[in-house]
Every structure is written in C-alpha cells, then in structure tokens.
C-alpha cells in the first residue's frame, strides 16, 4: 500500500528473537521500508580492556573466551599469539598442531551456529538450527573432553596449550571428521537449493568488494563480497601453510553468498583437521614460561582468522607483569560498519536477513 504514511521509530531489541543477544537497533521506518538505522550497543559491556590492565598475562586468557563466546578457542589463540610475539616465546610443534585442530573445530562449531541462525532469521522454525547444533554438540563434547569446558574453554596457554587431549579424544574426533563431510552435504542438499532461502537471501544486503575493503569488513563478510582474503593464507600463523585448503569467495556479495561461504569453509576446515590429525607430531604440548611473565616494553599486534574474521589482539607492555594496554579488534563490531549501507532502503525482513548474515556475537561487540 503506497499511500500517505509517516515514518516512525521501531525499536528492535535489546530483547528480540533475531538480534542474537542484547543488541538493539533503532530503526526509522516508513511502512515496511527502513529509512534510517542506528545501533545501540553496550548492554553487555564488561570493560575487559580495562580489567586486563590489572591482571597478569596468563590471567587475561579467560577474558578472550568471554569476548566471542561462540569462538573461544580462536580468541584464546589470538591473544596467546600476541603475547608470544611480545615476549618472544617459542611454541612447540605439537602445540601448533593442536591449536590448529581446535581453532578449526571452533570454526566449524561457530559457522554451524551462524548458518543455523541465519536460516532462522529467514523464517525457518528452528529446524536448520537444530540440525546444525548436532555437529556443534559433538564438537563441544570434544572440547569438554579435552579441557573440561564447552563454551569458555580457556584452553590455549602462552607457549602452547593447557592440556594434551586424552586418549579417547582421538577416536572421537576421527569419527567426527569422517562423518562431517557427509553431514555437510546433507545440509547443502537441504538448504543451498531451497527455493524460499534463495528468494530471501539473494540480492539482500549486497556489499561490493570495494566497500567491503574500505569498511574494514573481514572474514566471511569480506570473502562473500568476492575478496579472497584469509589470514590463514595471507599471514600463516601456527603453520597454516603446511595445510592444503582453499578460500571460498562469493560471487555477488549478498547474504546468500555469505551463507554459502560459511558452508564451504566448514568443508575446508574439515580438510584441515584431517591433515592436522594425520600429521600430529609427538612432543611437549607447552613451553614452560615464567609464572609472572614480564615482557620487555614494546607492543605486538597479532591476529588470527576467527570464524567472524580478523580477530586481532593489540597488547602493549611496559615491562610489568600486566599488559599496559590490551585491545581486542572485534570483527563482530567492525563488520557492522556498513550496517546502514545494507539496511537503509531495504524492507524490514531483508534487513533482518542481512543482519543475520553478518553473524554478530554481542559479547564481542561490547566486550
């Protein structure tokens, strides 16, 4: 109905089924069309960066769990890499492999969640999410087996990993990796060619390659827009150059492309885990570091390719046992830089789908 209408403000969130946490959008709408959008965040702000200035380097690792609580392993890894770079700690080979295995498992878990909630945002009544949870559950079981926690793993340590996986871990992960490709094909069959999902996802929230780079987008957002950028290839940490895998790149830059990219990344991650398991060397899983690590004054910026993209940790040392400054470059927050570009002019359902394809984690936005 295109008749006389006047714009009104719609509050989406902080409690809303599709904001995935306490995240709020103030939307100025004209009928069903969005005229302006503004995000209101901070409901989950815990001031981690300030708290970290009072704790030792090792004590800060749990914060990185709780920033991006869907990708705790990646957060652990990025922070440990930064501190290792700052303090010049060497990491044993086995630890690197284990880190790769767990980071990739975490990526699979997180992408499953992201794709499930994306389809949920497109209107499915929980079913894809439940299927995606099936694999995520098994991965979280693996985490629990290894480090005792499922969500906030606190597994990586400066100089390695906290524990060697137990004996029963290996058959479990073997069977998981054997079954995963089959399961992914099942999802692809169910979802990729789904007529309704195509109708809802294609042409929604388009971001051009140029905009994506300029807007500091990272991860599946950037790759969905056609830019082949993956830190695992560009800046191989933890020996990622040893593994053979490919970067999926979208063709159109819309929400559906991001969905496809995530699905493909799960496949590639399975490949990486398989290779890492095959080549897992024996040896120590950790380097001994002093209890109170006191790196020389200086700074380090280390980044890993988390599930949501470039997860950077900027750590400044003044020679003390606590970081002088600790900053998390949060991909969830920065991926929202182009929210206005995606949402303005779109209809409300499209904007919700576009927001779902960004895959935000509010713990990481607010920190």
């Amino acid at each position, binding site marked *: *109905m295109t008749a006389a209408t006047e714009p*009104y403000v*719609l509050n989406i969130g902080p409690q*809303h*089924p*599709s904001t995935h946490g306490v995240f709020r959008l103030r939307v100025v709408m004209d009928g*069903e069309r969005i005229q302006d959008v503004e995000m209101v965040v901070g409901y989950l702000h815990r001031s981690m960066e300030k708290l970290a200035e009072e704790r030792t380097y090792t004590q800060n690792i749990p914060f990185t769990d709780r920033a991006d609580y869907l990708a705790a392993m990646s957060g652990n890894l990025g922070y440990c890499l930064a501190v290792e770079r700052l303090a010049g700690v060497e990491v044993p080979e086995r630890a690197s492999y284990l880190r790769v295995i767990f980071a990739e498992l975490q990526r699979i878990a997180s992408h499953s969640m992201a794709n499930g909630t994306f389809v*949920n*945002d497109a*209107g*499915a*009544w*929980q*079913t894809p999410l*439940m*299927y995606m949870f*099936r694999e995520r559950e*098994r991965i979280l*079981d*693996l985490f*629990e*087996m290894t480090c*005792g926690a499922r969500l906030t793993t606190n597994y990586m340590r400066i100089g390695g990993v906290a524990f060697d996986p137990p004996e*029963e871990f290996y058959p*479990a992960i073997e*069977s998981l990796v054997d079954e995963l490709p089959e399961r992914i094909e099942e999802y692809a069959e169910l979802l*990729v*060619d789904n007529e*309704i999902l195509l*109708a*809802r996802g294609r042409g929604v929230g388009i*971001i*051009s*390659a*140029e*905009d994506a*780079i300029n807007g500091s987008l990272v991860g599946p957002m950037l*790759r969905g*827009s*056609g*830019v*082949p*950028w993956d830190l695992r*290839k*560009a800046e191989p940490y933890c020996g990622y150059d040893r593994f053979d895998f*490919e*970067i999926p*790149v*979208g*063709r*159109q*830059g819309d929400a559906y492309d991001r969905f*496809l*990219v995530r699905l*493909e990344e799960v496949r590639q991650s399975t490949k990486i885990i398989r290779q890492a398991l095959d080549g897992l060397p024996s040896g120590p899983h950790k380097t001994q570091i002093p209890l109170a690590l006191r790196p020389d004054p200086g700074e380090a910026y280390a980044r890993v390719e988390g599930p949501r993209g470039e997860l950077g940790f900027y750590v400044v040392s003044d020679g003390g046992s606590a970081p002088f400054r600790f900053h998390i470059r949060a991909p969830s927050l920065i991926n929202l830089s182009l929210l206005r570009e995606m949402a303005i002019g779109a*209809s*409300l*359902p499209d904007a*919700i789908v576009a927001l*779902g394809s960004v895959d935000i984690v509010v713990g990481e936005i607010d920190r």
Partner: protein
Amino acid sequence: MSALRMGRRLPRRTVPRALMALGALVAIGFVAVNVAIGYVVIDGRLDGQWYDVRDLGIGVQELREWLDDRNAQQPGILDFLGQHWISYAVTALLGATGILSIVGGALLILIWVERRLIGRMQIRRGPNRVGPYGLLQPIADAVKLIQKEVLMPRGADKVLFFLPPALIFIPMIVAWGPIPWGAQMAYLDVHVGILFLIAVSSLTTLAIFMAGWSSNNHYALLGAMRTIAMMISYEIPLSIALLSVVLLSGSMQLSTIVEWQSTHNVWLAALLPLAMFTYFFSSTAELNRTPNDIAEAESEIVAGFHTEYSGMKFGLFYAVELGNALFVAALTATLFLGGWSLFGLEEWIPGYLILGAKISAAYFLLVWLRGTLPRFRLDQLMKFAWQFLIPLSLLNLLIVAVEASVFARWEVKGIVSLGLFAIVNWAAAIILVREWARRMGYRPEREAVRQPILTQGVGGLQAARRLGAPEMGTQV
C-alpha cells in the same frame, strides 16, 4: 577429564510391554465391536430398534423425536416458547457441547502432537517430562499461562485491547458448525455452508486488527497490517478455489458435497488438484503458518499482532491459531478428501473416526510445512497471490465451470466423465502452473546453483576483479 561422551544419547524411554498389550487389546476390541454391530445393523436385525453407534446423528434424531412426543403429550408451562423447544434446546446443547469438547480436547492434544512432531523433525525429543510422554504438557502450559499476570501496555485502548482474545474465539468455534462428522452429524448444516464459512472467517480480520491497533505497539501494528493485507489478498484465491468445489458438486452445503463425493466414489482432490493446492496454500497464509507466517514472523516482528498479550490472553490467541489450523485441516478433509466417507468403508467404521483420521493427515501436512520451510517476504507473498494464484484459480474455475455444465447434461456413467475431468484437470493444473511460472520469469534451469569460487591465493580488490567478482553497487 570427562568420560567418553561421543555418541551419547538420551536414554530412550520405552513403553511398558503391558501397556502396549493393553492398548492393542482395547483397539482390537473396539474395532471388533464396531464391526460386529455394523454387521448386525446392515444385516437388518437391529435396524430401527437401536441406533447405530457409527452414526451418532441417528441417536440424536431418535432423541429429538422422543422428546417431541413427550412434549406433545404433556404440555408444560414453557410451551409458549414453541412446539419443539425442548428438542431444540437439547440438541443445541448436545451439539454445542460436542463441538466445544471435541475442538477443545483436540486443541489440548494438538499442542502436544505438534510439539512432539516438530521435535522429531528437529532431531530432539519434544515435551517428555510432564506426565507420561509429556502428555500433560499442554495442561501445565495452560496452568502456567493462567497464573501469569495479564499486562496491559501504557497507552493501550482498554476496551479494544481486552475484546480481541474473546472475539477471535467466536469465528473459530462457529466455523466448526457446518462440518459433517457423519451421515447426519452436522450441527449447523446450513445450505450456504461454504459462503457461511468464508463470511465467518472474515470476521477474524477485524479482531486481529483490533488487537494490533489497540496494543499501541509498532510490532503489533505491523503484524496487524500484514495480517490484513494477507487476508484480503488470499481470501480471493481461497474463495475461488472453494467456488470450483461448489460448481462441480452443485451445492454449498458441506454435507451435500461429502455425499456427492461419496456417491461418485471420488475425492475432489483427484478432480481439482489446483483448487486444492490453492486452498491449502491460501489457508497457510490466512493461518499465519510457515511458509506464510509473515504476520507473526518471529525473527522480524516478534509475535505480530499479539506481541503485547500475556497470560491466558496470549493463550487464547495461541489456541485460536491451532484451532484454525485444525479447522483448515478439517475443511480440506471434508471438501477435498471425501469427508466422513471412505469408499463404502463408512458402513463399517464410524464416520467421525474417518474424518478424524483425514483431519490428522491434513494437519500433519501443516506441521510438516512448519517444521521444514523458511518464510517468504511480504511482497513475495503478495506477488504470488495476485500474479499467480488469482489468475490461475480463475482459469481453473473456468475449466471447472465448463466441466460442471457438461456433467449436468451428459448422460454417462460418473466414472467416465469424472475420470475424463480428472485427467483434464491434472493436465491443466500441470500445464498452467508450469507455463504461468515461466511467464512470471521463473526459470530455475537457467540459473546454475550458485557455488562459491574456490581459490588458493589471497589478495584485495585486484584479486577480486581477477576472480570475476562483479562490481556490485557503487561507492555508497
């Protein structure tokens, strides 16, 4: 370090053997008794002496006659109310109680059924804690809902806010009136049954609008607007689809339509595939169920028009939603699946059981849709209604009209003419849908399934251009 937890499953609760045996025994006994009575009745030995348990309608008929007799013999003080007032009152009470209890009981069970079914579809268990197999879950839910505080938002229109939950219940219950449950078992067998149903269900629109408008909430208003837009759009193809049923069977009375199907030994679903599809799809739109649940799109507008309702007021909306879904299943079963008839088997099995089975089947389809599909967008649905369903159902109506007039004039066995119609209608449905979809620009074979490009190298804009990522958008 935890134990091996891979492949861990919830312990499967097994049905006690004794219970299963008992259930089987009861079922077999029920069928046996029914068959025996049916045999005796058909045999003629009990005819006219005792009413047939397979048809409660006969029993009620006899009750009425007996009451009228008594009334005529013994004049009472209330006779100024008319000659048949006792039988009117008694049958009205009986029928109303029957409908209310059947629909109410079905609603209670359906909540459980739907949640269990969807749980199964979503590889989880569904409610299984309250009572055996979680069967008491709906009651627990109801108790919880009743206990909850009823909130009214500030700035809400008081009267209009409190009316809709009750108001919306009326069409849902009244619509059950004309459904025939057996040969003589229709509570309100009006001659203009289908028109009556359409009219009654159109009353829902206003209640929904009242709920959405009076809530003083943007989500609710958006939901109400969406509902109204959907209902207006989808009422047209729905009515046209029902009209083709009326044309072919020559009556708007539901019992006559079922009898028509029964005498010609055919289900209208076989004769009118396009009408049935149109009806079913439009109904999902009117019901706000996936894939057309845009009016209550949870991920977009939270709960649509009943966002602000809490406690049992919400419970009423929820119950009405389920009840309407059940009603659509019932109407589908009645109009397109032969109602209470089952190719002569209704002589042996009570009609209401046949109808119940058919309703369950149709309802399962609705649950299946809900458990499977994502949601369309409002404009896509509108486009589908106006550009696809309405023209197609009009063309279908034209074909059916020709067939109906042929059927009325052609002196040939039903199996010939109706078989011919079935072939023509199926062919027409397939061709129409296919060609119209192509005219609308739907060509799936031309678009390859999109797959991401796989690459080994990294790079920025130049690499993106090399890979062939198109220049999407401009510098915004």
